[in-house]
Every structure is written in structure tokens, then in C-alpha cells.
């Protein structure tokens, strides 16, 4: 019995895919065609040679030595290094803060529990950009300068920066073994506090996922609350926590791109300046997307490795 092709249940999936494929191809061809035409009209066809031209702008703070005569690719590299710097320290700080706040949610102290809850609820409902601007413009930029700076043992908080280590005031200017710019400090604080709240929720969810029977068994064996948490519950909770941490870490890495609001020269901020100067929109965007994608892949790979370590061996 011959089945007409439009009713054939084996052919229909192929037809649907062919139709969708055709639509997608036509759309892409249309967009790319326009892109090439418009770019060549503006004299901006895809090329990478401009990366070797001198940058013509300075970067406010950088680990790698940089000045305005060095090529664009070195500027972008310096931006990348800045991004990696803030992301690495941010991940460590946010994890610490999040773990503290997450486990505080199970403390026997009612005030501590409520404080942890309030912290999470406050941070989650206010936009990150607003928080970053607050930290930079309201908190850090209003630090007093010179002799009036806030002086703690081994730490000086002044308007010219944060100084760690052996600090001294020379001619009204502070010096220290390690100087952290306000921009870096503000960005780091904002990112850590913001991601810390989400990581606290992840930790809390992981601990809640451990069956109540585990708590009861541990306590009836005589373990204290602290020992139960650290020896019995947390290792099991990690099974649930580590996969969720992956997405939080990627989120933090992506959020670092808001550094431009704090005046910190991360990859995005340098790229934006590069675009403004060269007009090379397509290439710059490709570099940005590629780099952030690579960062996400690296984080995911590492977290997957960690995940394998943490999974409980089952029969």
C-alpha cells in the first residue's frame, strides 16, 4: 500500500529537517551577504593585521608592562591577564564567603541563620551593576586620603589605593609592599559579595539534599553539630554542590566583564576602547566571544574533573 509522501511517518522527520535546514541556511546566507557587503563598503573587511598597529591608549593598571606604543594585541593580552586575575581571586573569595554563609544557614544560632538569609535575599534582588557602582563610587571613592586614611595593622585603606604589608606614609603619599587599586578592590568586593550569595544558596541546597537520617545517625553516634557537618554531611552534600558550582563560577567569570563600570581595565574594557579606535567591530567581538567561551570551557573542564573526584563510588 503506497503511502503518499506527506503522510509518511518516516519521511516527515526528514522533510521537516530539510525545511528547517533550508530556512537556517538562507537566513545565514542573507545576513553574511549583507555583512560582507556593508563591511567592504566601509573598508573594514575581516583582517587581523591591525592587531600589530600601535595601540595609542594607556591601560590604567596592568601586570604586564604596557604603554601606548605597543601593539593592540598586547593591550588585549594585558586586559585578559587583568580579567584572569580578578576571576581567580574572585572565585576563591566567593567560594569562601558562600560556604560560610551557606553553612551559617544551619547554625544553632538563630541570629546567624537569619543574617545569612537576609544577606542572600538582599544581594539576589539588587542588580550586580548597581552593587558594583555602589562599592566603587560610594564606598571606595569616599575613603579619606593621606594621613586621614583608615589604618589597620598591615592594611591601609586610602583614596589612592589599598596598601598591604609594611605601610609607611612618605611625603603625604602612602607606600606599601602590595598596592591594590580602588578599581580592582571595588570590582573584587562586588563580585565576591554577589556570587557569594548565590554560592551560599547552592551550598544550602546541597546540605538540604542530604537525607535527614544522616544527621540523626551521626548525632546518635555522639558527634557534635560541627563534626557532623564537616565529616558526614558536607562530603555528601558536595555531590550536589559541585555541579551547581560550575554554573556559578562561569557566571562570575562572565560578570567580570562589568569591570568597565568600575574603571578597571579588563578584557572587555580594553576591547571596547580598541573598537572605538579601530572600528573593527566584527574582529573585536569575535575575540571577546572566543575568549570568554574558552574561559568557560576551562572552568567546566576543571569542575568536571572535580566532580568525578567527589562522586561517591556506587555499586
Amino acid at each position, binding site marked *: 500500500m503506497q503511502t503518499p509522501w506527506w503522510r509518511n511517518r518516516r519521511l516527515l522527520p526528514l522533510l521537516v529537517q530539510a525545511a*528547517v535546514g533550508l530556512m537556517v541556511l538562507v537566513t545565514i546566507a542573507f545576513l553574511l551577504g*549583507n555583512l560582507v557587503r556593508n563591511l567592504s563598503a566601509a573598508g573594514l573587511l575581516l583582517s587581523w593585521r591591525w592587531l600589530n598597529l600601535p595601540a595609542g591608549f594607556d591601560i590604567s593598571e596592568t601586570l604586564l608592562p604596557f604603554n601606548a606604543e605597543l601593539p593592540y594585541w598586547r593591550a588585549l593580552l594585558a586586559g585578559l591577564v587583568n580579567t584572569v586575575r580578578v576571576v581567580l581571586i574572585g572565585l576563591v573569595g566567593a567560594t569562601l564567603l558562600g560556604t560560610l554563609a551557606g553553612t551559617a544557614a544551619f*547554625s544553632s544560632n538563630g541570629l546567624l541563620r537569619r543574617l545569612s538569609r537576609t544577606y542572600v535575599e538582599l544581594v539576589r534582588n539588587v*542588580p550586580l551593576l*548597581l552593587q558594583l557602582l555602589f562599592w566603587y563610587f*560610594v564606598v571606595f571613592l569616599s575613603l579619606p586620603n593621606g594621613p586621614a586614611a583608615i589604618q589597620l595593622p598591615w592594611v591601609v585603606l586610602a583614596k589612592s589605593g589599598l596598601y598591604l604589608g609594611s605601610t609607611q606614609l612618605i611625603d603625604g603619599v602612602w607606600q606599601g609592599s602590595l598596592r591594590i587599586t580602588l578599581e580592582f578592590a571595588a570590582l573584587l568586593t562586588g563580585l565576591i559579595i554577589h556570587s557569594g550569595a548565590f554560592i551560599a544558596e547552592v551550598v544550602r541546597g546541597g546540605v538540604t539534599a542530604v537525607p535527614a537520617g544522616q544527621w540523626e545517625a551521626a548525632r546518635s553516634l555522639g558527634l557534635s553539630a560541627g563534626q557532623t557537618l564537616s565529616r558526614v554531611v558536607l562530603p555528601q552534600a558536595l555531590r550536589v554542590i559541585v555541579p551547581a558550582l560550575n554554573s556559578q563560577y562561569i557566571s562570575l567569570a562572565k560578570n567580570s566583564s562589568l569591570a568597565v563600570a568600575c574603571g578597571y581595565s579588563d578584557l572587555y574594557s580594553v576591547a571596547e576602547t580598541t573598537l572605538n579606535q579601530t572600528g573593527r567591530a566584527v574582529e573585536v*567581538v569575535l575575540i571577546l566571544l572566543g575568549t570568554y567561551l574558552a574561559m568557560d570551557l576551562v572552568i567546566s573542564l576543571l569542575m568536571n574533573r572535580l566532580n568525578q573526584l567527589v562522586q561517591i563510588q556506587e555499586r
Partner: protein
Amino acid sequence: MNRPQALTNRLRRELFATPLDGLITVALLLGLGAGLKALLHWTLTQADWAVIQANSTLLAVGRYPLEQQWRLWLLTALLSGATGSSWGLLRGRGWPHSDRLAAAVLVVFGLVLPATLGLTATVQQHWWWITALLIAGRWAAGRWGGELPSRWRRLLPLAWPMLYLLGLGLIGGGLGLMSVRPSQWGGLLLTLIEASFAILVCFPLGIALALGRRSELPLLRWCSTLYIEFIRGAPLITLLFLGQNILGFLLPGGLAPDRVWRAAWILTFFAAAYVAEAVRAGLAALPRGQWEAARSLGLNTVQTLLHVVLPQALRVALPATVGQFITLLQDTTLLSLIGLLDLLGVARAVMANPEFLGRNAEVYLVLAILFWCCCAALGLGSRSLERRLNRQSLRSQP
């Protein structure tokens, strides 16, 4: 055991159970006390709220022409009436405790807040009318809503999309009304337009992507997965950047839509990927037997999706999806980084005004409170909707 004794016992148990706890409590109380004292001191002595009062219109609607702002008031009135009526229709007659509380809060907001913010007398009056309209709508719909013929009741949900389109028309102009270009939209108005557009369009798009990702057809699966993973790997600011700079190149010469709509579409495409992941989890939670039962009853694919699969999957996906909407509302602040004058953009422009130099804290505080209230309200609404839906549909246990 009398009340004060029970209270002290409870306090002792919660705060001073162990010596360590006691220490922590004392330390926290000292710290909190100091912080609150400083905050209060600042609020009462140093804070100067004139910056808010002077710029309230700017923050609310940006540079919308003054003589056309009656259209915005009309829209607000319509929305308030529609909200009140919908609320009333859903609740019916009678005012349960929670409704009375909500109404009281709204009345306080409507009457007291404009005065405390120092808005002009005419504006205050407008807000009184709008609040009154909301409460009146609630009362009238509750009282007479049940008597509406059922055919009308079925058409009522359509009123909201129509109201939305009408709203866009009122804001942008068109037939008869003077057109107000998107570059003149700003402040809270622009934030709400961008967020509402993105939320409305990203939802069906996300559902389509989720269905595509779980499809048995390889091409659909690859396309959806590619799109979702690409978007999830990119920071939003980079995509907004892309939208502003490259979208113009992708369309035949000079046809680029206004910057406001470019950003709106980027927000939509961005959020759709995350909504797709949430809906995908909902689809995965659905047992295969549901599909089989629907097919064996003779329902075709579309009917199965509409009546059996999506209602269940969306219930599971609801919390995560609303979470995405809240994130979307917060992400509109990034528009200020690409030069659009959303609420944050206007605020930063206001703070750059030499007349209001140094008033950053007040402005940021007001913005933070505003966002916090909106997002917390959305979160509360989502949780209560979730509870209501779960009460109805308990999973069948074999």
C-alpha cells in the same frame, strides 16, 4: 508558662544555646548595632534627598516630552484598572486577610510615598487617583465579575495582550498621536519597556528552543544546542555590544532598527536560552507514559504538547523561569553601559550633574530599594503561584 517567660526561653534557645553561640550573638549584635547607628546618622543628618525630588520625572520617564506625558498617565490608569479588575475576577467576592493587607499596603504607598518623595502636588493627586482606580477595580470586579456571561469571561485574558499593544502605541505614538521616538524614552519607562518586551517574547522562544533541544530530529537538536550553548558562554555585555555595533552590518544598508529595539531583541535572544534550559528540565521531568497515553488516545503532536506535555512541564519549570525573568529585569541595567538611558543610565547622568555632585549614595539607595521591591515581589508572586499550582495537581502515584 506565661508569655514573657516563653519568650526569654525561646531567645535563650536560639541565641545562647552554647557559649560559642553566645559569643557570636554578642559580636553580631554589636556589629549590627554600630552599622545601623551609622546608617541612621547618615540618613538623618547628611543625606540630602533633593536630588531625587528634583529629578523624579527624569528618573521616571527620561526625556519624554512634557506635553505628551498625559499619555503615560492614561496608560498607567488603564494598567491599574486592568490589574485591579483581574485581581478581583480571580478572587471573587469577599476580602480575605491577605487581600486586605495588600490593599492597605497599596493605599499607604499611593498616598504617602509620593508625598515623602517630594513629588509635585499634581503628580501626587494623579497617584491618588491611580491607587483609587486599582482598589475600585478590585472591588467592582469582585462584586460583579461573577455575573459576566461565560463567553466574555473566556475572552478576558486577551485583554492583556491588547492592552500591551495599546500601551506601546500610546508610548510611541502613531495614529493621530504625535510620535515620540524611542531615543526620547528613558528612565523607569525604558527599563519597563525593555524588560516587558524581552520577558514576553523570550518565553515562547525559550519553549520552542527547549522542544528543539529534546527533539528526536538531529538537525533541530544540534541547532538548538548550538544556540543555547553559544549564548550561555557569552557575557551579556558582549552580546549587547555585538547588537549595537554589528547588527547594523547584518541588515541591508542602513535598515538598522532603533538602538532601543536592538537592545530589546538582544535581551530577548539572551534570556530565551536560559528559559530554554529551565523548560528543558521541566520536559525531562515528565514521564514518557504521558506522551504514550496521549498518543494512544488519538491526540496528535500539537494537541499533546498543548494539553498534556507543556502544562505539566511548565509547572515544573516555573520557579526557574521566573528566576530568569527577575534576572532579566536586573540585566536591563546593563543598557546604561551601551549608552541607553534606562533607569540606571538616567541616574548616572543625574549624578554627573555638577549641581548634585556627591549625592551618589542617595540615588543608589533609592534605585536599590526600587529594584529590590520589584524583584522580591516577583519572587513572592512566583512562590505563591507555585504553591497554588501544586495544590491542584498532585502527581499520580502508581
